Every structure is written in structure tokens, then in C-alpha cells.
């Protein structure tokens, strides 16, 4: 409650709006920089990682694979029921696997972001919903999420400050 009242008084203080905006931005960005520094691992050297993935109607198990930029990822893909696809065009992956088969897929994680793994073979009623996630982080951080969240918070705080200070609207 105290913290909220501090923020409250901050938004209404006598300081010039642009200075407050600047301070707010600095505080936010510094907070996120500290957070990013805190969560990042000491070493983020590219590694060779191995995953066993089972495709089944209508999911991948595990549904989410998280690696670091530069990692070389080897996936041993099996199907638990019918023929499925394993499609990540952003990373140049387009493979299919039938029941009883095993496919080895090698992915070079050279782009950061969250990429959807999609089934490219119609495999049943929920086929369009059969997705998984292949997340490529940078130094242990999902920088797209971190960056977009930072921008979002800054946009939110700025909007709050700017629109709160505007003249009264007639409803």
C-alpha cells in the first residue's frame, strides 16, 4: 500500500512532467537490466543438446524445447499414433514421422525467439491446433519476451502519466 501511495504521489508531484517521464523510464529500464543480469547464466557457450520428442494427436511431448542461441540441437522424433509433421520453417525444419518410425532432426539455433512447432500433416480433427514451442534464448534470456515486456511497461507507464495529466473529459 505504501509503495502504491509513493507512486501515486510521484505522478502528482510538482516535478515537470518530462523529468518524471525520464525518471520513470530510467527506473524501469534499470530494473529490467538488473533482472536480466540476475537471471542470465555465467556461461552461455553454444552446446550440443539432445531431446527425445514424441508426436501424438494433438501435441508434442515435451511441448516446449528451450535452447540458447548458437546451440546445435538434435531431436529424436517418434510418433505415438499416426503420421505427424514437425515443421519450423523459420529454422529450416520440415520433417514428418510415421508410427513406428524414428527421425533424427538437427537444428542450428541461429535465431532468437519463440518458434511454433507445427504439424504439417493432417493428423485428425484437432490437427490445426497441434503446436509445440521451440524457444531460442540469448544467454538464458528470452530477449523477445523481455524486450517486448519492457516496451509494454514503458508504454503503459508513459500512457498513464500522459493521459492522467490531460484535461478533464466530458462524458
Amino acid at each position: 500500500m505504501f509503495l502504491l501511495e509513493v507512486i501515486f504521489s510521484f505522478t502528482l508531484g510538482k516535478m515537470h512532467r518530462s523529468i518524471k517521464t525520464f525518471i520513470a523510464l530510467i527506473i524501469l529500464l534499470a530494473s529490467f537490466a538488473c533482472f536480466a543480469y540476475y537471471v542470465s547464466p555465467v556461461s552461455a557457450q553454444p552446446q550440443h543438446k539432445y531431446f527425445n520428442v514424441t508426436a501424438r494427436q494433438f501435441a508434442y511431448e515435451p511441448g516446449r524445447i528451450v535452447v540458447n542461441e548458437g546451440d546445435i540441437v538434435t531431436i529424436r522424433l517418434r510418433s505415438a499414433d499416426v503420421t505427424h509433421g514437425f515443421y519450423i520453417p523459420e529454422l529450416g525444419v520440415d520433417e514428418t514421422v510415421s508410427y513406428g518410425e524414428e527421425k533424427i532432426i538437427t537444428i542450428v539455433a541461429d535465431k532468437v525467439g519463440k518458434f511454433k512447432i507445427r504439424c504439417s500433416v493432417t493428423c485428425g480433427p484437432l490437427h490445426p491446433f497441434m503446436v509445440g514451442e521451440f524457444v531460442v534464448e540469448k544467454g538464458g534470456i528470452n530477449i523477445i519476451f523481455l524486450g517486448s515486456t519492457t516496451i509494454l511497461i514503458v508504454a503503459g507507464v508513459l500512457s498513464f502519466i500522459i493521459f492522467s495529466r490531460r484535461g478533464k473529459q466530458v462524458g
Partner: protein
Amino acid sequence: MVDGRASSLKNLLTSFISHRNEFDLTDIEFFRRIFKHRAFQWAVILPNLFIFVIVVISGFVGTPVGNMSFAVVFVWILWWFALMTVLTPLFSRLWCMICPLPAFGDWLQRRGFIKKEGGFRWFGLNKPWPAPLKNLWPVNFIFLFIATFIVLLTTRPVVTSILLLTLFVLGTVLALLFAKRAFCRYICPVGGFLGLYSMFASFEIRPKDRTLCERHVTKECVRGSDTSFGCPWLIYPGGLERNNFCGLCMECIKACPYNNLAVRIRRFAKDLLVKSGRALDEVYKAHIMLALALIYIAITQGPWGWLRDWGNVFYKPTYGFALSGIQGFAIHAAIVWSSSLIIVPGVFYLFCALSKYLAKGEGSTKNVFINFSYTLIPIGLAGWIGFSIPIILVNWSYILNVISDPLGWGWDLFGTKYIPWQPVLLEAIPYLQILAVIIGLIYSIKYGSEISKQVYQDERRAVGAFLPIAIFLILVSILFIWLFVG
């Protein structure tokens, strides 16, 4: 002349964001004549009715494979995307103008397709809608019931067709029992959320001069005239302040002897500041839509297969520890209903209580809840836009496939049946989703702060009251961003 056109163009281009340059389409002779033409609505419904018939038939007799079915692809990929990203945000309830569901009911009530004959009287019982049901609660519960079966609906063509046919029959039967469009106003599950999100739209029908409408005794816009049936939506167009229940049928434009109704392109989200009409049943719709956006993104676009299994009532566990279809579906239904009716509104209510505390407000927390719930409309709509973007960019090629073979009988009418599945702009999807959420958040905060100034006369209290709400909006936005790119 050239200056005049340039000025008109400038007004049109700035009308989306500026309250000073609203652009009235009835100032243009072409649009005025079209809106006043009796055959206008009939002409825009007819092609849609044709597509509707194909959709229903294809669901019953066509392929049962969802992504190869005209019913599923046209309704849940093309229509849904168009509705949530273009039609509603830009043109309000434009869909209601062309919707085929109440068409037969209209034609039966009016004893004809287009013209109003001399000695006209309504066909059917023409009863008034029961007073206890004159609210959005029936729509909310009907919508939530249907929404519970979303996995089934969007993947089984026959279920889509049964739903559409049921709504069509219901619309027709209710038109024979009750006056005008009671179905659209009080029952239609689509109309509920279209009405809510049409408040954000940059399009409106409004009286040009309200005092003229007040002085005008005969009120043809309601009662009808020789050329018009009057507003079928049970509203008084001369007093229109919000889009919620205006189906853009243009009957009022045809009726008004003074040409006193404007069809305007206006700034986005203008209706959020209109105090009259704010009510608990309406804002609950905003909470339901917000909760469902989050749940649907998680179910249909997330990596959690077990969530999809739970939503699929026909799921048969094939390995490991898994719940049966009915068990899982019961949990799914509990999640959908509790999130929509209790969790999301409950958490928001707590933020509203905090808002009231910080503002040292005298009114009830319920009023704070109702007023500030309208801030959820831009961010909720943004979430739905973010949800809809991948639906079209990933699945667009299915539309071409089913156009060539609408019934799944092996036709290839336009040579597009075998176009391979080819998603486009996949790398752009996360950024488009992020952009949608940020814009939605900015609009939510902008209008939230203005609503707060409406409620609290004192600026200091207004800012204090809105602070917890702004934090809630930012947290919801982060949740959307996490689902999209986290």
C-alpha cells in the same frame, strides 16, 4: 473543388483518431443513395445467405476433416479473422448488417423481402420481449455455454453446422413470437461480443442534431414510415449515444424525413466515455471475453497438449496418465466458467476495491467495477486480434482449398484444391501480436484515465483511483505477451 476534396480526404484520414474531423458518409451522394435504397440490406445479406447455406450443407454432407471442410474453414478461419480484426474494430456491427441468421425472420415479419407494401402490418405474434430478460445475461450464458465447446466447434464441421442451423431456426421462430429483432438483441451469442467491441469501432450512426429529434413528434425512425420499417433493434436512433445495439441496418436513415442521421467514421473507442447504459450485465461480457481470449490462446496456440485434450470431449487417452474425454472436459468446462465468471472479474474487483481505497471514494465498489470494466474492451479486443493473426496467416491456404471443393466431394472448381498448406509471414506474427497488445494497452489506459476523471471530479483522486486499474491492465497485457512470445 480540388481543395474541397483534399479537405474531405484529410478529414477522412484523421477521423479515426480526431474528434474534430468526424467524417459523415451521408455527405456523399453515392453512400446516401445506397443507404436509403430499400434493397440495400437485402442485397448485402443475399450473397452471405448463399455462403451460409453452403456452410451448413458442407458441415452435414461434406468431409468430416475440419481443415478440409468449407464449414470450419469459412467460419472459424476466414469469418472469425475478418470479424475480430477488420469488421468490428473498424466498422462496428457491420456483420449484423449482412448477417443471414435473422434474415428469414425479418422477411416473415415484414411479409416480403424488400418493399413495404401499402396497408402494412407485421406478421407473427409481435409480443414484447419479457422484461426480466431485457438484459445481456441470457447472451452471456448462452455464449459461455457455446464457448465451452470451442474445441469441438472449430474442428468438427457437423457441430458448426448444427450450431448455425440452430441459431437460424431460433432467430426465425423468435421473430414469429416477439417483436422485431429480439433474437439479435437478447439471444444471439455473436451479437453480445460484437455489441461490446463495437464500442471501440471507428464507425457510428448518430443523429446530426439531437434537438431536432427531440422536437420531432412522429419518430418515423422508430415507428417506421412509407419507406421504412423503423428500427428493428428496439432502440430510438434519435437518442443513439453508443454502438452497442445498433445493427447498422439503415432503416432509420431511410425513415428520417429530415435526413438527420449521420453514418460517421469517427475516432476509435469513443463510446467508452458514454456514461449512460453502463451496466453489470454488459461489463461481465468484457470479463468473459478477456478470460476466453487468454484461455483460447493457451488451448489452441500453446504447447500444452493436456489442455487441448481436456477441451476435446471425445478424447481417448492412449498412453500414460491421462483423463478420459468426459473427465477432462469437466475440468475444461470448470476452467472456462470459473475464469470467466469468477476469477477474472474477482481479481479485477479486488483491484477496484484498492482503487476505491486510494481515491477515498464514497460510492460502492460495484460502481467502480462497472465503470472501470470498460477499460478492458481495448485490451481484450487486442488480445483477440493477437489470437486471430496466426489463424489466418497459418491457415489461409485452406480457404483456397475449400473454395474449389466446398462439399469435399473431390471437385476442383477453381484449380485451387491442391494448393499445399503454406503459412506466410510466420516470423512477423509475434511482432504483430506484440504491436496489437501495446496499442490495446495504450487505448485502455487512455480511456481508463478519462473514465476515472468522469467518476472523480478531483484530479488527484482520479489519478489515484486509476492507478491500480492501470496496473491490472499492464499485468493482463504482460500475460498476453507471455502467451504470444514468452
